[in-house]
């Protein structure tokens, strides 16, 4: 598909997020991050813990304040000060699925309340009957039975709990779902169930996902495009398969070289690349965010770009910066 056919649902431009007020303990969690998400795709954000990937997700859903840059959702700016109406609208159209279903559900509330909480807040239903219908439909959509409504979270297994987490976000009929490590707290066999559920819902409802994870093999399986983030900066962004086959940036290469294979022979032959940030000469030659080929972005300076271009021409040779 030509990219001009695709509609940008979310655009993040030069986003900056800071923590700590005073100068002394100010910490820049996200610096100058730009990317966009097309309607209907699954966009992955990978990086190690502390790299700022969750912060970006939380900034989009307005849980973290932004210190600079713009977040544009469906043509409207949604960060900073916005009016109440828009805030309500955003809350409905962007939803989140959290990591740990053991911790993210209210233990004291019944499933009925947990799933309806968003509806109660926005009052976007006509009467009790309609609310009930919406909630029951959401439960059926995630493969749970309506009779579970009167139960408490502790009566469910981890996989079922995560389904409840999914149900309470889709009941709002969102367009964008931010899934922050939705399966890393789950068992291998249940992971597959939740991943399948997510792609099934995407097909059925035309959802767009921002999938935040550190498990690279899951990201490869589920995302269409992926951005690699390192210490608050996106270093590379491209279509998933392309990036996994030909990573350019040394950090991306190091990250991908560490992916575990469920295949002893491949695994033993694996060569680990180690990323050393001092390989960049950014002091007098600062890097830019460049589209090196169509839909493939990388953070690099001129000298590195030359090397990367050669890498793209003949990918089988070895290069060093």
């Amino acid at each position: 598909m030509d990219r001009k056919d695709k509609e940008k649902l979310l655009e993040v431009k030069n986003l900056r997020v800071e923590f700590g007020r005073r100068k002394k303990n100010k910490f820049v969690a996200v610096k100058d991050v730009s990317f966009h998400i097309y309607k209907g795709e699954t966009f992955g954000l990978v990086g190690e813990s502390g790299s700022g990937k969750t912060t970006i997700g939380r900034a989009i859903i307005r849980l973290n304040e932004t210190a600079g840059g713009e977040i544009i959702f469906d043509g409207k700016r949604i960060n900073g000060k916005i009016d109440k109406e828009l805030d309500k609208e955003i809350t409905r159209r962007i939803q989140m699925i959290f990591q740990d279903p053991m911790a993210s559900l209210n233990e004291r509330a019944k499933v009925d309340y947990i799933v309806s909480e968003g509806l109660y807040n926005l009052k976007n239903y006509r009467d009790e009957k309609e609310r009930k219908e919406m909630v029951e439909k959401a439960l059926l959509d995630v493969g749970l039975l309506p009779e579970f409504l009167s139960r408490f979270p502790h009566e469910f297994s981890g996989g079922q709990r995560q389904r409840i987490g999914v149900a309470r976000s889709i009941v709002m009929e969102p367009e964008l779902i931010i899934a922050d490590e939705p399966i890393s707290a789950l068992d291998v066999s249940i992971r597959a169930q939740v991943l399948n559920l997510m792609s099934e819902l995407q097909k059925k409802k035309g959802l767009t996902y921002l999938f935040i994870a550190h498990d690279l093999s899951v990201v490869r399986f589920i995302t269409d495009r992926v951005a690699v983030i390192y210490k608050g900066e996106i270093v590379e962004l491209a279509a998933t398969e392309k990036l996994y086959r030909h990573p350019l940036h040394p950090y991306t290469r190091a990250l991908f070289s560490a992916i575990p294979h469920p295949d002893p022979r491949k695994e033993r032959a694996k060569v680990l690349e180690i990323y050393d940030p001092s390989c960049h000469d950014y002091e007098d030659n600062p890097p830019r965010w460049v589209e090196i080929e169509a839909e493939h972005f990388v953070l690099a300076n001129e000298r590195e770009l030359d090397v990367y271009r050669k890498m793209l021409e003949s990918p089988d040779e070895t290069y060093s910066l």
Partner: protein
Amino acid sequence: MEEKNIILSVRDLVIKFRLRGDVLTAIREASLDLYEGESLAIVGESGSGKSVFTKSFMGLLDANGWIDSGSIVFEGQDISQYKTEKDWLKIRGDKIAMVFQDPMTSLNPLKSVGKQVLEAIELHQNIRGDKARKKVIEILEDVGIDEPEKRYRQFPHEFSGGMRQRVVIAIAIACNPRILICDEPTTALDVTIQAQILDLLKALQEKYNLTTIYITHDLGVVANVADRIAVMYAGDIIEIGKCEEVFYNGQHPYTWALLSSLPQLGVKGEDLFSIKGTPPNLFYEIKGDAFAPRNPRALKIDFLERPPYFSVSPSHKAKTWLLDPRAPEVHPPESIQVLRQQWEVESNG
């Protein structure tokens, strides 16, 4: 397979827990021979009993749990008969040590890192003062901590996750144990760090002459480090064999299911293989093959009688009726067949 010394031998171990008045059978007649110097990976879902199984080697069962029958023979003694803490202290740390999952919670935040390693040495090795201090620095260096003299005085919060896990490993190996049990040693860590820690554990195994047991739910992690793999389900080891044998020639339907639910083996855009249902309730007696209710290819007998071990090769055996000569031929799922073919092509070429 060459003759190897058995360092730990578990026979028909049954472990039960009392929970809210009911009795739960966590380990159901599991047997295992651990060879000296090998690294064994125990793989299974949460609740399969892999942690309970290995904790029983160190007398670390929760107060409501007990070894009901069976034996654990280590250095000629049946340690399953140990009753008092005094007995266990001879084993725990000294002979069998453990690395826990989360390095964020397994260190004391109020003590310097060096002191915590020192504690282990003083307690178990009877070395004190400067000599002990030197030993600590040596060990810190062994686990890959730069500037050990400076790091000695620092506190856990000054260390990154990967570095903390190195300290935890240092404490575990400080007393020269014979067996090192690593309970999900890398799950809490990032991929790049994960690979480094696994490399470190491999190197230490050689240097300290350790026998290691890895407990994990991620088959991808163990392909690299394990000599043998034991697959655990509902409190029993249902398949055990050399790493290659289990990966490329797995026999139990549960092993197939576990492998093919890995996203690495999935085809993009298609549904990932997923295991239906949930593990059996261990409060009830399990009849037949514990995996049968979740196995779409289950045979009739799977629901009636518990399968014994069938050998596939001298080093590889599995508890499934599919290996019985009378069983009909059942093909594994597609992704497993692909794995097998790749293996056969490579082995013959």
